[in-house]
Structure formats: structure tokens, C-alpha cells
């Protein structure tokens, strides 16, 4: 009856992931072409791709590391504003994008530092405050952000002097989403993924096993914020308009909801969540009162009825404990 440590395990799960990845890539790249006749639907698909990328980053932090950063949208905003400012000053978008994303990563890593001390619910509260301050910052530093008015008519990037066509940019967004999922899969297959899950499950035990909890939480924030930043950089020229409201706490909540609704801590749950919820907000745009009520109801439903989310609930066993926003533990001493 004895088994071997080496065999079995996750190999099966991985080939399934690769198959799903191939399927997702095909859909992501075919969709813009198939929808190229209908600009509105193609646009909805493009925005969904950005949200899939964001959901992957939020999933890394919330789903896999157990940190709920409600300043996620603010971090994306750092990158979006950076890119818009730099391109307005003559930078190429393709050079501004990595710079903006890096700015977001560094900001996110610094703003994530409170998570080293504050656990669960307390960090979430703290991140809410950080998000609020960031939104105020976007309004206040109007020299860089144009304040409440924001920037409009942000042009699509160009390649070799030629402005990109909408279709080409749609394909860029598809590539970004596919790449985001690929990176997440790779991380979760690596030892980094193991460490993050260990930190989520019990950071004190993780430390006891030699895992540098502080360092890896910071790495999680760096990578997760990179997702936020790349998404923010791509978002600005696509929508053509950014303002402090583009990156406020409601956007953070929306991204969180996509992850939680789809299934945090699974690769595909948040992708599904984003694919369902991002278009929904477009189709409900005209009924915005209904939309807000629906979102509120959905948040409650997710928390109360299906804490593991769509895919998490369908999966073999519910893999995650019911409450991620854990009860305030006053620095538990190991007993």
C-alpha cells in the first residue's frame, strides 16, 4: 500500500491546465477577429482581457497568498498615469509600459509592507485606507494627473510610426491576458507557488519550515502589482480616458469579486469570473442602479453561499477554509 513521494501528485492537473491554456489562447485570439465587424462587442472583449490579467494578479495575492489588497486598482492607476504622462512627453508607449508597470510594482511592494504586520481583516482595512489616499492623491497631484478631470483622448499606441489598428490592439490585449495566465500557471508550479500557499495557510508554520515569509510576501506584492501595472498601462489608451474614478476602490472591489466569484486560489476560476463579470457590467450599463444592487448582492452571495467560488465549489473537495477574512487574531503565540 505504500506509495512513492515522487509519482502522482500534480502531473495530471498540469496537463489539464495546459489544455485549458491552449483553449483559452485560441478563444482569446480568435475573438477579436471574429468580433472585428462589431466594434462594441470587440471592445467589451478587449476590456475583459484586461480584467482577466488583473484578476490573475489579484488571484496571486488574494487567492494564493491570502492577502486582500483593496488598493489594487490604485496600483494599476500608478502605471496608467505614468504611461500617459510619459507618452505625452514623447515616449514610445512600448517603452513607457515597462516603466509604468515597474513603477506600479515598486509602489505595490512598498504599500504591501503593512501586510508584514497586519493579518487578514486588518490588512484589508489598511489597504482600503491606502486606496482612499491614493485616489485622493490622483485628484490632488493635478500636475501629473489632471485632477478630477483626468486625461481624455489618449491615443492608441503606434508601431513603427503607424498607429495600431483597433484589431491589432485587441490582439495585444489578448496576448497580455494569455501571458498573464501562463505566468500564473508557471508561478504556481514553481517553489514560489508552494511558499505562497504555505504563507496563506499558516504563515507561522511556513516560517518554521524555513520559508522567508517577509521576503515572499514582498515578492507576491511585486509580481501581483506587475499584473496590475501592465493592465493599467494597457487600459489607458484602450479606453482613451482615465480619471481618479477609473482606479478607485470600486474597481478594486470589482476585481476582487471576479476572483472570489470565480474561485480564488484556482487558476481558471478568476479567469472565468472576469470573463463573466467584466462583460456583465457593460450590458447592465444602462441600468446602473440594478447593476450596483446586483453587484452588492453578488458580493454577499459569494461570501455567504459560496466562499470558494464557482470553480472552487465544483472542484473535488472544497480546498479553502470558509473565511479568508479571518477573525482578528491578537498575535497568536504558538502553543
Amino acid at each position: 500500500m505504500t506509495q512513492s513521494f515522487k509519482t502522482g501528485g500534480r502531473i495530471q492537473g498540469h496537463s489539464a491546465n495546459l489544455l485549458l491554456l491552449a483553449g483559452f489562447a485560441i478563444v482569446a485570439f480568435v475573438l477579436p477577429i471574429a468580433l472585428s465587424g462589431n466594434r462594441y462587442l470587440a471592445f467589451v472583449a478587449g476590456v475583459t482581457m484586461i480584467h482577466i490579467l488583473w484578476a490573475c494578479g489579484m488571484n496571486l495575492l488574494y487567492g494564493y497568498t491570502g492577502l486582500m489588497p483593496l488598493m489594487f486598482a490604485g496600483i494599476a492607476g500608478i502605471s496608467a498615469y505614468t504611461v500617459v504622462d510619459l507618452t505625452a512627453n514623447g515616449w514610445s508607449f512600448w517603452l513607457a509600459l515597462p516603466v509604468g508597470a515597474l513603477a506600479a510594482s515598486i509602489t505595490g511592494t512598498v504599500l504591501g509592507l503593512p501586510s508584514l504586520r497586519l493579518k487578514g481583516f486588518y490588512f484589508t482595512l489598511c489597504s482600503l485606507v491606502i486606496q482612499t489616499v491614493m485616489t485622493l492623491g490622483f485628484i490632488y497631484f493635478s500636475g501629473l494627473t489632471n485632477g478630477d478631470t483626468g486625461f481624455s483622448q489618449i491615443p492608441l499606441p503606434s508601431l513603427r510610426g503607424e498607429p495600431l489598428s483597433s484589431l491589432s490592439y485587441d490582439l495585444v490585449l489578448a496576448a497580455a491576458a494569455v501571458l498573464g495566465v501562463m505566468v500564473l500557471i508557471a508561478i504556481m508550479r514553481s517553489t514560489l507557488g508552494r511558499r505562497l500557499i504555505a504563507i496563506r495557510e499558516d504563515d507561522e508554520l511556513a516560517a518554521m519550515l524555513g520559508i522567508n515569509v517577509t521576503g515572499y510576501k514582498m515578492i507576491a506584492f511585486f509580481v501581483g502589482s506587475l499584473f496590475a501595472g501592465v493592465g493599467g498601462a494597457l487600459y489607458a489608451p484602450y479606453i482613451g480616458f482615465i480619471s481618479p474614478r477609473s482606479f478607485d476602490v470600486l474597481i478594486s472591489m470589482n476585481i476582487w469579486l471576479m476572483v472570489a466569484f470565480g474561485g480564488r486560489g484556482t487558476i481558471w476560476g478568476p479567469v472565468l469570473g472576469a470573463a463573466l463579470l467584466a462583460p456583465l457590467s457593460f450590458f447592465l450599463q444602462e441600468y446602473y442602479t440594478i447593476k450596483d444592487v446586483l453587484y452588492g448582492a453578488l458580493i454577499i452571495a459569494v461570501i455567504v453561499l459560496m466562499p470558494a467560488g464557482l470553480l472552487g465549489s465544483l472542484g473535488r473537495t472544497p480546498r479553502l477554509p470558509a473565511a479568508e477574512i479571518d477573525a482578528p487574531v491578537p498575535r497568536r503565540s504558538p502553543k
Partner: protein
Amino acid sequence: MTEVLLEAKAVSKRFGGVVALKNIDLVQHRGETLGMIGPNGSGKTTFVNLISGHTRLSSGSIAFDHVSLAGKNPSQVAKAGLTRTYQAVRVFGELTVRENVATALVDARVRLGAEAVDELADWLRISHRYEARAGGLTLMEQRQLELLMRLVQQPKLMMLDEPVGGLSSSEVRTMIGLLSELKSRCTVFVIEHTMKVIRELADKVVVLMAGEKLAEGSPTDILADQRVIDRYLGTADA
């Protein structure tokens, strides 16, 4: 057996007004099994917490393998080759046994091959449970998994905080058997609040009473020590 592995000098710990440990001196040699006993609340767990970096010393010093542990956090202590278990068993409950072990391997001081892991898992009689969710295991199995997760890291010293707590009497027998074999794999420090386990395992016993070291010696000496009998072994708690 002459080389000093763990040395605590004048270790004290206060929690606000409560003095949990007062001036504890203690030496453990490599290969020597040290038992620590004392009634509940006498400071045994606090002592392990201080060494493993979970709690900061109020005063005193601790050296492990000739290196000071001052200011080291738990992951640095683990990297130095010192590991511990918890009085209340602690595993990653939502992960499988295999995933638990894989997590223990990620930042292990020495990276063990899969065959060596299997050998340890077979010895601990847990290898048939690799696919089980750790939270669904029995307490005994969780304790076995806990030992496996420590052992795959090839520690120099393993500190066990009441390893038989909560087990049935037959499981206690099995665990004592495992622990006496464990002694050939690494140096063992074991806390218990009864003499039963300590007597079978320990080469040297330290008795804690209300945060102070009451006595130290071989198990037979301790069992014969009149002060220990009067103040601890004679009481119902032991």
C-alpha cells in the same frame, strides 16, 4: 557526545508583569536526548518559543551549534538546523500530505531526494496517506506527518512540545517507539508534563517549576530527588 549543541545562559522571559522564565541555564550536547518536565504553566513552551525565534528574550543568550540565535526569526532558526513541533498539532490542513511534505522541502537546509523522503515516510507509517488531506487525518497521523515534515529538512536538533498529548494509550506506545528511533536521526529535545515518556527517552532531565529550573540530572536521579518529589512528582499533576 561532548560537543555542545544548544546552550542557554541566564534566559529570562517576562510577559508584562508575569515572569514566565527566570534565569534558565541549560546545555544540551549533540546526540544527547534532553527531557524537560514541569507542571502546566511552568514555562516549557515559552522556552521552546524563545529558542525557535517565535518569542523574543527578555534577557539572557542562546547559542545553537556555536552560533548565537540573538535576533534570529523562525525561518533563520530553521535554516540553522533547529526545528520544533507545536503543543497543538499544526499542519497545513487544507493541503494533502504530499503537498505538506513538498512545502517542507522547499526551503529545507539540505534537500532530500524522493527515495529518502519515502524511506522516512515508511518509517513513520504515513506513506500510504500521501494523497489524503492533512486536516482529515487522525491526530496520531497528523503528529506523524509533523515529524516527517521536520525530518525531511534533516535538522540537527528537533524540539518536541508534548508529542504524545491527546493520543490514546496505544498510540502513546507507538509514538514512544518512534521517538526512541528518532534519536538515531537527530538530536532530540522533548517536553512532557509527565515523567512517563521522559523516563523512557531522555538521557538528561530538566525540571521547570514556575519558570525556574528546579533540578537537572539523569531520569533516575530526578525520580529520586526529594525536592522534585515534594514539589512536583508527588503532586497529582505528574
